[in-house]
């Protein structure tokens, strides 16, 4: 574990809700990306009082590294319980980094229909993009060395927190 001081995830989440609030309408749909993005999306969906039901995506079947690392050992079912055709979707992810997860998520969404618009909200933008992806709503930007992995975690009381790991190290 790194000694570097990380921002408080709960505060960032409250800030993220504040910047999103002016833009949400009756036609706004949230879609969380597993796993951290779903936790955030559940909280935002409740906090913003959205009418359309919450969607969840597991992008495992759309990832571009399947050929290198194979199938994720715990794929969750994706669930989009609203009509994607014509909807205004905000994708929710915990950490925006290379942009590859978002590419996969957009591809998967379009297999459900043609949304009117797709925007992105991320709790943390840590830079390091490898694809032309940008978030509309960001909780905080953070510069991190490339050998570090930033992860959102949830404790038994449902409180969210950020943790930093060394890449390829066991125990996470």
């Amino acid at each position, binding site marked *: 574990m790194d000694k570097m001081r990380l921002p408080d995830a709960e505060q960032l989440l409250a800030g993220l809700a504040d910047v999103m609030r002016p833009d949400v309408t009756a036609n706004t749909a949230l879609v969380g990306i597993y796993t951290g993005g779903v936790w955030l999306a559940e909280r935002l969906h409740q906090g913003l009082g959205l009418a359309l039901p919450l969607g969840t995506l597991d992008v495992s079947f*759309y990832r571009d590294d*399947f050929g290198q690392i194979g199938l994720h050992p*715990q794929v969750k*079912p994706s*669930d989009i319980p609203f009509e994607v055709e014509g909807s205004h979707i905000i994708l929710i992810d915990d950490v925006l980094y290379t942009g590859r997860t978002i590419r996969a998520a957009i591809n998967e969404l379009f297999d459900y229909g043609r949304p009117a618009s797709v925007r992105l909200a991320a709790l943390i933008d840590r830079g390091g993009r490898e694809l032309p992806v940008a978030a509309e709503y960001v909780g905080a930007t953070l510069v991190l060395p490339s050998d570090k992995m930033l992860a959102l975690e949830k404790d038994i009381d449902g409180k969210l927190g950020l943790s930093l790991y060394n890449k390829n190290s066991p125990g996470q």
Partner: protein
Amino acid sequence: MNNPQLNKNGELQHLLTTEGLPASILLHILNTAESFVGVTERDIKKVPLLRGKSIFNLFFEPSTRTRTTFEIAAKRLSADVVNLNIAASSQTKGETLLDTVDNLAAMHADMFVVRHSQSGAAHLIARHVRPEIHVINAGDGRHAHPTQGLLDMFTIRHYKSNFHDLRVAIVGDILHSRVARSQIHALTTLGVPEVRVIAPKTLLPAKVERLGVHVYHEMAQGLKDVDVLLMLRLQNERMLSARLPSTEEYFKYYGLTPEKLSLAKRDAIVLHPGPMNRGVEIDSAVADGGQSMILPQVTFGIAVRMAVMSILAGN
């Protein structure tokens, strides 16, 4: 013991039988299949996972349903599928099994789905091919039909939530059934406490109790308090010797009628691997009744085969 289905990291390299696979691998397949059920319910029933992969269905024995479900599964994963009906192909001209496989491997096959009347055919191919090629056994002789066994497990878990407090009865021609063997190994590995087989003595393999099952010869006792009934097809084409007086007599004693089904638990479910012989092992009133999950089995079978193919291709 070296398991030819696993690679050096203990991951699934080929799916040849449910025997000897750890519960963790069986559950990984079932859990992954849950995610594919959602995919098959969308308008666009396709994911790009196996784009560019070539899957060869090698069917040395006739099969419509199994071959079709493998074909649909591969296509929904965006793979390219080639179906070879080898009974009507090179083998009749004298080419050996492994020569056929070598020729297809030279066409850059990534996966073989093999159905053969000889037990061990898929094993033989799996041992022969290069390590980057994966083999799925789609039924070999009397030995194994692992994807059928797994889709039955998926269906049971879907309707019964878990395996740990179930009584499951397998009814019918156990002797000739590769499906029954794959079911028994999967059920016991997944922790089903009581697996029964119900059949006349002539349709049971010798020493079947060694597989960990309880043997019954009469439906009245065998079906008592059962949660799941796995019906088997009476394998007419495999009945080389006269093991039964007649199909009518078989139906009288072992055919699943509403009356016999009422001996099981009220919420018991009925499964059948298909194709059904109505009026032989199952009555139409049961096959088409509310406790029958035979058609959901077919739907889930595609998701389970998608899961197996994508797990193998990623390992």
